[in-house]
């Protein structure tokens, strides 16, 4: 029995020793943090062209590839785009993944341009994810000189969406105000639209006045803006206008005494939220688009202006002077002065707070060192970071529809009496991509379609 006792003791020691030694300490989780974005190499192969193409069709096929490259280059933190040569052979519909991997390509896009009549092209676009060894999407489009940019943007968007599972900016538009059509004697500011890449600029208003604070509805069918009329009249008022993209008709939406401006659409498209001053003080109201019934959202003896709403419609951000200087606040737009929270505590003068599509971040401009610069803050008031510096005076930021970019107006002083305003685009972390307007008058207040 003594032997058994000894064996039992030995086994007990062997089996309990290691376990009891680490029983006193638990596991500890160390948060590594958010990952960096991997840059994917996109290889544009082609265009594969047939011998039958006319010189103008050949030029068109080259332009298609140039637009594709330019589109993907906007996402420079995601894609690095490289070009293949033009090939006068039939399109290769299969891919040797190993060869592509050796070449360092992550995404392969192939084009084929075939003649469609004497002027148009039948474009076939094929794309592959080399890493996953899978075909992404095959698209066929008829392209003419007139619809070239639009069709290539659609094809680019399809490839991007299939690749990332997200919408792109390729089919979005930027609306802005410009004084391009001013004369020496009369300064006018009208509303224009352009593609995300600054091309295809179109004039939308002909009021011969000053258009301010445009906003686009989420369904992209409506646009609201305010107008400061230039005609000298007893009833000169800043009225709010509604523009229908389909009918191209303008109508007065709100003409209360005083300011009717800074309007934005609610995500459901049934209401607008705007600044009204008919009560003597600028306050934020919501207005039903059908009944025009108003509901007050803010109530304070100081001015509340510049509203912006998140995509779910649950949180409103606005500018208020209630703390003594212009600071950014958030509130619940469903009630009066509901859950009002101040989120900015620094800066001499802050302006134009704008939500990103996700609604977790707000970009705004702040007066610093005799100029405006752009800053970003989380909607709970944390994570204040600076986006622009030493890049002129930067105002009026607006997030892109996918939240990856910010368009803004930037002023450059040319001389003591002359300055120029242009619209620039940068990524959400402040990496400047370039200007969208140049030699198009002074361009201000950009608004990105949702």
């Amino acid at each position, binding site marked *: 029995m003594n032997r*058994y006792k000894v*064996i*039992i003791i030995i*086994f*007990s020691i*062997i*089996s*309990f020793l290691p*376990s009891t*030694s*680490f*029983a006193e*300490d*638990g*596991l*500890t*989780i*160390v*948060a*590594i*943090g*958010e*990952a*960096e*974005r*991997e840059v*994917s190499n996109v290889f544009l192969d082609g265009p594969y062209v047939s011998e039958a193409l006319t010189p103008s069709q050949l030029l068109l096929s080259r332009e298609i590839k140039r637009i594709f490259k330019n589109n993907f280059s906007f996402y420079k933190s*995601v894609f690095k785009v490289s070009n293949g040569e033009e090939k006068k052979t039939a399109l290769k519909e299969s891919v040797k993944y190993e060869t592509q991997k050796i070449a360092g390509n*992550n995404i392969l896009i192939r084009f084929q341009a075939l003649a469609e009549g004497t002027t148009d092209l039948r474009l076939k676009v094929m794309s592959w994810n080399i*890493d996953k060894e899978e075909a992404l999407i095959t698209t066929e489009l008829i392209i003419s000189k007139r619809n070239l940019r639009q069709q290539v943007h659609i094809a680019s968007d399809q490839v991007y969406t299939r*690749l*990332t*599972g*997200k919408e792109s900016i390729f089919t979005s538009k930027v609306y802005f105000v410009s004084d391009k059509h001013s004369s020496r004697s009369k300064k006018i500011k009208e509303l224009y639209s352009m593609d995300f890449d600054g091309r295809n600029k179109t004039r939308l208003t002909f009021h011969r006045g000053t258009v301010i604070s445009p906003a686009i509805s989420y369904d992209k069918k409506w646009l609201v803006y305010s107008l400061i009329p230039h005609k000298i009249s007893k009833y000169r008022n800043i009225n709010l206008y509604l523009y229908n993209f389909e009918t191209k008709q303008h109508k007065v939406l709100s003409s209360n005494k005083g300011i009717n401006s800074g309007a934005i659409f609610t995500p459901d498209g049934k209401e607008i939220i705007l600044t009204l001053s008919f009560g003597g003080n600028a306050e934020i109201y919501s207005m039903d688009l059908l009944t025009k019934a108003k509901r007050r959202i803010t109530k304070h003896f100081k001015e509340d202006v510049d509203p912006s709403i998140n995509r779910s419609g649950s949180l409103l951000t606005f500018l208020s002077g209630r703390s003594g200087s212009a600071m950014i606040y958030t509130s619940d737009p469903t009630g009066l002065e509901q859950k009002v929270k101040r989120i900015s*505590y*620094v*800066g001499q003068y802050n302006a134009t707070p704008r939500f990103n599509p996700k609604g977790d971040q707000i970009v705004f401009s*702040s007066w*610093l060192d005799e100029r405006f610069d752009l*800053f*970003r803050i989380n909607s709970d008031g944390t994570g*204040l*970071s*600076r*986006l*622009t*510096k030493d890049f002129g005076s930067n105002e009026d930021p607006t997030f892109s529809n996918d939240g990856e970019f910010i368009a803004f107006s930037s002023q450059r002083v040319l001389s003591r009496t002359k300055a120029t305003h242009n619209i620039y685009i940068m990524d959400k*972390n*402040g*990496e400047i991509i370039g200007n969208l307007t140049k030699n198009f008058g002074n361009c201000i207040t950009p608004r990105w379609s949702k």
Partner: protein
Amino acid sequence: MISNDLIGNDYQEKLRLFFTKSVLLHIGVILFFVLSSFIINYTIEKTKRASLKVVESSVRVEMVAMPEMTLKELKTMGLPEIGGKVDKALKIIQKTPIKKNDFLKIKKKKNFLSLMKDMAKKKVNTKKYKKIKTKKQGSLEGIARGDLKKLLLQGNKLSKGTGIVGDGIAATETFALYLGKLPMIVRPHWILPSYLLDKDLKCRIRIYLSENGKLLRSNIFETSGNIEYDNKALLAVKKASPFPELAENIKKRGIDGDIVLGFPL
């Protein structure tokens, strides 16, 4: 002969019975201990999992003014390494030979008057002093101090935090300090393609480290549900290895796999 055979058969039978009993008993004892050891280890592991501690990178930031540096500037700005300078200094110290007479000279006693006389005779080498001063200002250490001072003055402009405590309690334990180094080491290798980055996925990797910080084993502690995401996290851990050497008092915890890395949390 018959009786001998009977005795022999009886003895063999008894031996066989004893042997069988003995084997069964041994197997039983071994099984009991293996099983009890397994149960105990399982219970401990369960307790460990239940008492998980989450350590987040954080920096306490007082918002005193608008940030002066942009996000881009903060990303590109790395604090200069002070370690290099220390190594250099050590080398210089090692190279300087120690003369035997040095100690003897110190031992030699002087009266106060002669000491004052000697001091008055001594010339002050101002050129040398100036030279040393300029050198120090231009050194890496000088730059680092300047940058740190700037950062402190610039209010809320600190970049990614490497502090280990999120609730403001000072962490003084060696293990906690060791954990605080890990995010900085793994993060450069934590890279995701955009289609995975925006999916709000989360996984946790348990790591087992040798005494010198080498990665012995890593396994998925909590899966994200996406194999590619989990593999990218595992790859980041492998690429980050070797980790810093573990101090004597925490070596055991590294080997036991007490560290779980959260991607991102």
